């Protein structure tokens, strides 16, 4: 019997609402135990809901089956190589899940009196101390919920810092290689983005930087930089960049998404950065969860400290013989205020602190070293053979933890777009690299293997790329129509945006 499609392709997608049947249920609730007064006697009927929302009606076994089967329609890090550039898809230790689930963490109410949450506050303080050492900056706030939230925080801190000095500045510089969240955060923070060009080494074009600074005297609030940047290269001019910005009275913001390249090797603070965000869901092993949760703590210099968000976790020396105690400090007159509810994504802090404890200083340093080794090795493998010709490296030099190739020759010679290569990789069981980013590079492929991948995985990936390029020489359509073996094949994204169907219609 010839296969027409894979078993999963044959399985028609059905939502849980379509599996619902009136009268079924999974939940049993406790008895009220109290007088069952009519709701109308307790709440004015005009404020009450007429009909319960049309949630699914389905028994527990079928709920479990539904989501178990759905889960298999995802590719995940625990199934294979996931070299998604800029995302640091490193191993997620299950130990971290175990300790995060301890009732002392998982069932601790965020409004608990600090005197009865000393363990949680100490953990947060220890994490702050660790991140401070890793970033080379003295103060840390754990509050931001993710990297982009940290960016917004950093820009609001910059604004507060300048306002405190009676300055008003409106421009934020960012290289054309910067991540989309950078400019988006700039706008949200009420600033205007000014692009800075990239030089032939992949770093900031110094003349352009000087030009922009000259163009906007006393108006540049901040320069946002990733170092190593999104091309995976370390900007050697960082010291000079820092002094230029500081001379111009601006702050220097470090987008820490690429911190995994330099842990224990080089510190943003030592490079001259004033504000750093750290993606705990990247360098510090918090699982990505299919799009979060994460956390984006920020580390800052002394001059920025007074403006940090409220509340701040502090350590107070113990009075009369008591050991030191930990507290939430709300008395921060110059603070920019809150960025969110309560104290931040504590569950993420537990996981990342467990990760830091597991590896220790040496382990973190070695992790970055291995990340850089893996990236340069894969880069070398892909510089050979067909890949070398069709997918040249964008900036030919040693990379840090990731690197960017250009699919331009591949497109020109084989008619294969980077997207086609990405889709065909799916058939080989690999998650594709980040594509079409950074924008600077034509048909970009951004590849970050991370330190937790074995050489065999890197070799397998390189071999797959080679094979795809080879087969494309006599049959480019193979890739253009790929993928073939995934649960669904190429999807009509245009239609999804033109006539958006963003919820199920229920009758």
């Amino acid at each position, binding site marked *: 019997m010839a296969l027409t499609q894979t078993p999963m392709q044959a399985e028609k997608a059905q939502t849980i609402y379509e599996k619902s049947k009136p009268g079924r249920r999974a939940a049993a609730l406790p008895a009220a135990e109290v007088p069952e007064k009519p709701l109308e006697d307790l709440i004015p009927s005009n404020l009450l809901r007429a009909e319960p929302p049309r949630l699914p009606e389905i028994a527990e076994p079928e709920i479990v089956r539904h989501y178990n089967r759905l889960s298999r329609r995802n590719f995940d890090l625990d199934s294979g190589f996931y070299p998604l550039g800029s995302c640091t898809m*490193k191993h997620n230790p299950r130990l971290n899940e175990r300790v995060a689930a301890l009732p002392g963490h998982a069932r601790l109410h965020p409004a608990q009196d600090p005197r009865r949450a000393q363990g949680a506050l*100490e953990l947060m303080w220890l994490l702050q101390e660790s991140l401070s050492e890793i970033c080379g900056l003295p103060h840390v706030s754990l509050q931001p919920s993710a990297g982009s939230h940290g960016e917004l925080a950093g820009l609001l801190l910059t604004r507060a810092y300048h306002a405190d000095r009676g300055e008003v500045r409106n421009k934020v510089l960012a290289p054309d290689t910067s991540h989309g969240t950078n400019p988006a955060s700039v706008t949200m923070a009420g600033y205007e983005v000014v692009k800075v060009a990239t030089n032939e080494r992949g770093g900031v074009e110094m003349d352009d930087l000087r030009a922009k600074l000259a163009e906007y005297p006393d108006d540049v609030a901040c320069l946002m930089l990733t170092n190593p940047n999104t091309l995976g290269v370390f900007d050697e001019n960082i010291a000079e960049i820092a002094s230029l910005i500081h001379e111009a009275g601006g702050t220097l913001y470090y987008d820490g998404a690429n911190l995994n390249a330099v842990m224990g090797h080089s510190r943003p603070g030592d490079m001259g950065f004033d504000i750093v965000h750290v993606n705990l869901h990247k360098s510090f092993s918090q699982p990505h*969860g299919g799009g979060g949760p994460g956390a984006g703590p920020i580390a800052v210099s002394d001059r920025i400290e007074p403006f940090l968000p409220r509340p701040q976790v502090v350590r107070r020396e113990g009075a009369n013989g008591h050991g030191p105690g930990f507290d939430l400090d709300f008395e921060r007159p110059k603070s920019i205020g809150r960025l969110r509810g309560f104290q931040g994504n504590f569950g993420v802090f537990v996981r990342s602190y467990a990760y830091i404890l597991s590896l220790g200083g040496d382990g973190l340093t070695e992790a970055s070293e291995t990340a850089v080794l893996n990236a340069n090795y894969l880069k070398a493998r892909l510089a050979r053979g067909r890949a070398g010709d069709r997918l040249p490296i964008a900036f030919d030099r040693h990379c840090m933890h990731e690197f960017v190739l250009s699919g331009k020759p591949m497109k020109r010679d084989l008619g294969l777009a980077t997207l086609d290569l990405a889709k065909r990789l799916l058939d080989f069981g690999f998650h594709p690299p980040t594509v079409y980013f950074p924008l600077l590079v034509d048909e970009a492929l951004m590849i970050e293997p991370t330190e937790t991948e074995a050489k065999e995985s890197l070799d397998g990936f390189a071999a797959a790329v080679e094979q795809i390029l080879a087969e494309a020489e006599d049959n480019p359509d193979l890739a253009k129509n790929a993928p073939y073996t995934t649960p669904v094949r190429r999807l009509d994204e245009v239609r999804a945006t033109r006539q958006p169907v963003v919820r199920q219609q229920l009758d």
Partner: protein
Amino acid sequence: MTRYTSATPDDRREMLDAIGVGSTAELFEQIPEPLRLGRPLALPDGMSEAEVYERLAALAERNADAEEQVCFVGAGMYDHYVPAIVDAITSRSEFLTPYTPYQPEISQGGLQVMFEFQTAMSELTGLPVSNAALYEGPSALASAGYLAMGATKRRKFVVSRGVHPHSRETLATYSVGYDAEVVEVGLEDGVTDAAALAEVVDAETAAVFLQSPNFLGSVEDVEALGAAAKEQGALLVVACDPITLSILKPPGECGADIALGEGQPLGNRLDFGGPSFGFFCATQEQIRRMPGRIAGETEDVDGRRGFVLSLQTREQHIRREKATNNICTAQALNALGAMIHLAWLGRHGYRELGELLVRRTAYARERLAAVDGVELLHEAPVAREFAVRLDAPVDKVLDRVAGRGIAAGYPLGRDYPEFEDGLLVAITERRTRAQIDELAEALGAAVAAEREGVVA
């Protein structure tokens, strides 16, 4: 070699040869010498898994959690029971470890979950459009402000003092950025002062922010209060609780343009405040101004039903400085937990849960009001939480009651100077009648002891 890396000395040698360098140190030479750390990080050495476990268990031991104390604290996050299937499913690698679904062909699981979640939140709020979740409640409210400015080109926000203090603070923080003015409207006997609100809402007002049940637990008449906004062409933004939406009129039917809130009560544990998620729903008009990810239904080349991230043109990775919001990584896993919890409750269980809370809350409110030294802070109708005044210093009373293994509630004085003597008490399905009776007894005893100056 750490236990999470695979590169053996042999591997390293082979890899370095392929790269054409003699050591990894050479690779790091691109970092200017003065910027290299040149010393080990001042952090402890790595530990074995068992040691890390012991260390973190010891820290956890020093927290009084809801397993150890009977928890009547709410104030935005609640000690609901999280069904076991939530953990069982969210802990599956296939949901736990992938990145945001940029490759839809291999992300149908996550994308369909988003679609199901959006449908559920849309049903709960009575608004047609939902995103796939934001960070948490307060920042979701601040994002609504950003949307409202874009939609109305106005810069004034009118906010009820009944809105969660964290939400008001966060809105204020964000507003400094996008340069908006925030005007607060006070409360009268537990609910938003309608007259005062009508006063301040004007043609400059971008949005009016209400919360129901509000921070004091009162169910607000959103429809009536919202009228002012409608008249002035301001957006009506309503913060709500995803559990009591089971019995309260959905914001969408009260004229809300945006309904949002803290998602923790749905399938998420307390976690000392996070991670949870914020939900965000709006009218069709706002669909292209929505913040965050939105999954949409479509078809593949063979006509198979499938799901993708739709309307990406709103987002930072496409629109950069013109994006409707800067959010990227959000809270997908937490939204999955919520979806499973909702499916588990089901249409009727969900409603029964709401009814159970209203009735137990009414019982608890009566019970406490009858206690000497305890009186109601307001008489407005409540659903899952209520406020009382204590005739003794609240913190001292809380300490005494804590001694009996009870976390009696949230001291309103933390955020409302005018309610220094106020205590906010929350009820969930986990709080039994017996526990409520014990709370009443313990509060009475504690207040009495304080009044008589008995040493604790």
